[in-house]
């Protein structure tokens, strides 16, 4: 506990074919979670608003995301005359890549023994751990900003400016909110952080950090109430105003992907990852535990979406810079002092 370990302890090496299989599986899991999150969002929101939500396609409307995606993919790829062709097409892909890349480091469990081969239930356990997630979350600004700028529309431009400012501002608060955990756990590795929570989940000692993280996560993922970059009341559709068809679907899916990842990281960092209190289930339960916890955090996102109005742009900036960032900094300092004193 006394020394910060600069690299994660990778106790075993995985052969190349396991890496490839894992990459495919992680990708598939990710893209299965997106329609599920979409469905959960619509159904739960429907229930909160005294309606049923989609219930026509398939049993309980479960195939609605498939129908939506199918509809969008078969639409004509329209693009305004003023847009910048290559960037207009490429920007949604950036968003999607950034989201999918982050998903690779989410640990769904420790290492398991599958037919005599030791396999880690995560894409990669990079030594920089959570910094990897922040790097890609930082890159995803380009997806929104370039898309908004390349559309050649004034509303898109305003949306792009907003999203750039918003994402960069909240990146800081989000990073600082997690720093307390890194100090306490003494590692950047996500599996290491989860294992460090075997005694107590970090939501208890790092409750302030958790609150800051959740608020920033709303801004980072561009979900309501902090969806200012696509505030439909003011900017029609924000950065995605001119998008339609498959490109819009990509943006849309990337937004839900980001939400899933933000929830999964919250589970990993604050809610004990695959660990459960008082019980020690067999290893194969671990991914299920992580998924269930993730879905519960997604429910918080949906809940906030139905309840809260949207703050104004300057109010959002003020909240990020004047409240969350100082609070997160204070949290880091206090945590550091406590860690040093109790050590």
């Amino acid at each position, binding site marked *: 506990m006394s020394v910060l370990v600069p690299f994660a302890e990778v106790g075993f090496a995985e052969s190349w074919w396991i890496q490839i299989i894992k990459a495919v599986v992680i990708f598939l899991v990710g893209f299965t979670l997106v329609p599920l999150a979409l469905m959960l969002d619509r159904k739960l929101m429907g229930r909160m608003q005294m309606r049923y939500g989609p219930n026509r396609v398939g049993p309980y409307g479960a195939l609605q995301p498939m129908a939506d995606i199918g509809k969008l993919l078969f639409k004509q790829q329209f693009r305004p005359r003023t847009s910048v062709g290559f960037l207009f097409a490429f920007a949604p892909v950036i968003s999607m890549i950034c989201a999918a890349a982050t998903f690779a480091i989410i640990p769904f469990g420790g290492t398991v023994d599958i037919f005599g081969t030791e396999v880690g239930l995560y894409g990669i356990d990079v030594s920089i751990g959570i910094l990897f997630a922040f790097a890609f979350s930082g890159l995803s600004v380009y997806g929104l900003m370039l898309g908004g700028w390349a559309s050649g529309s004034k509303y898109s431009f305003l949306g792009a400016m907003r999203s750039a400012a918003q994402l960069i501002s909240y990146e800081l608060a989000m990073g600082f909110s997690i720093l307390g955990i890194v100090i306490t756990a003494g590692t950047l590795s996500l599996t290491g952080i989860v294992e460090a929570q075997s005694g107590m989940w970090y939501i208890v000692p790092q409750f302030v950090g958790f609150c800051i993280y959740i608020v920033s996560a709303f801004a980072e993922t561009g979900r309501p109430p902090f969806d200012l970059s696509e505030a439909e*009341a*003011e900017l029609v559709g924000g950065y995605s105003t001119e998008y339609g068809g498959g490109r819009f679907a990509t943006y849309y899916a990337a937004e839900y992907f980001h939400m899933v990842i933000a929830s999964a990281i919250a589970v990993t960092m604050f809610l004990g990852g695959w660990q459960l209190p008082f019980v020690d289930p067999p290893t194969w339960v671990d991914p299920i535990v992580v998924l269930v916890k993730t879905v519960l955090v997604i429910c918080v996102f949906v809940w906030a979406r139905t309840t809260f*109005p*949207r703050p104004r742009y*300057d*109010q959002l900036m003020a909240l990020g810079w004047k409240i969350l960032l100082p609070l997160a900094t204070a949290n880091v300092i206090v945590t550091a002092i406590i860690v040093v004193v109790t050590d």
Partner: protein
Amino acid sequence: MSALSDYRRREQSISYSAEPAGMGLEQELMTINMGPHHPSTHGVLRLILTLEGEIVRDIKPIIGYVHTGIEKTAEQKAYWKVIPVVERMDYLAYYFNSYAYCGAVEKLLEVEVPKRAQYLRVIHMELNRIMSHLVWLGTSCIDLGAIGVWWYCFREREAVLDLFEMSSGQRMHTRYFQVGGVIEDIPRGWAERVKRFTQTMRHRSEQYSALLDKNEIFLQRMRNTGTVDEETLLDLGVTGPLLRATGNPWDLRKAAPYCSYEDFRFKIPVGTTGDNYDRYRVRHAEIIESCEIIDQALDGLPEGPFITEDRKVALPPRHELATSMEALIHHFKLVTEGFRVPPGEVYFPIESPRGELGCFVRSDGSSKPARVHMRDPSFVNLQATAPASRDTYIADLVATLAMLDPVLGGVDR
């Protein structure tokens, strides 16, 4: 002039030049076209905004996209056929539209409206006021990003529309008010359902308050935004909840009672500063006061005819047609030619959910009005957009526009 050149002309008429922004850079203002199809312009209002970053420096509203020529159409129709036409102006206040018109014609005819008809009119108008305010609250909250409230408001609005359907057979544009009274007496069980509704409505409006009044984001968006002082509003002729939000208790129901409003005890909610929050609170309180009026009117609903006994104005009861020659002649005259109105002109103002709704009717003695003009409050109140939202953020402009509550059907007519 084509639409595009019209836009360019207006764009160029905005007289802001590029300003130096320091470090040898020049700052440019952005002109952006908001509407006529934009999610938050409440219909087809079009605003040409000049933005400096996110701050609105100039607003040019353009109206006329749902101009339907209702006032002109009214001149081609017999008096009683005008009612369904004027109802379609402000499509959230159809009872008020038809009452303003019927009231004006009744004044010209000097016909006595039975007390029961007056009470029934009050009940329907107050239900309509609640309904209109519910639509306003729901759509405003969507503009602010709180989509949940919209569904809650429309749940209650549906209940009101069900009541309208029960009493008149239609959910919107009911044509329930006639010159001289109302078209039919209320059906059995209606009064009890209305009572139940007012009970629920009181409870539900408390729930709205619990959801919104303690919400920090909502308060930040509402407080001290879109403030306009009383003098400016009076200069512009703005009435209704917008004026009352500044503390001026001008309400025609109290100031110049009509339709037996003097019989009821109710309060006029007023604000203090005239910002968006006051506008919200005033309308919210008006919902409760309307419930009070409805309850009192139902409790004191007098017995008697629901339409005037004057056979020259109102249709005779159906059963009389089989027995009375007189009734048959009256019926024939009314449905073919309509009633004739003595020459003269009259202005009849009432308090609609949005302010003073006045109807001017000039008669030349024939069975068709020579001129019908409506002073629609949405049209006049829309003038407050620019003073309320100049030099504010674009998000505040949207919130202010929502709180002004214009109905474009009424603006364009």
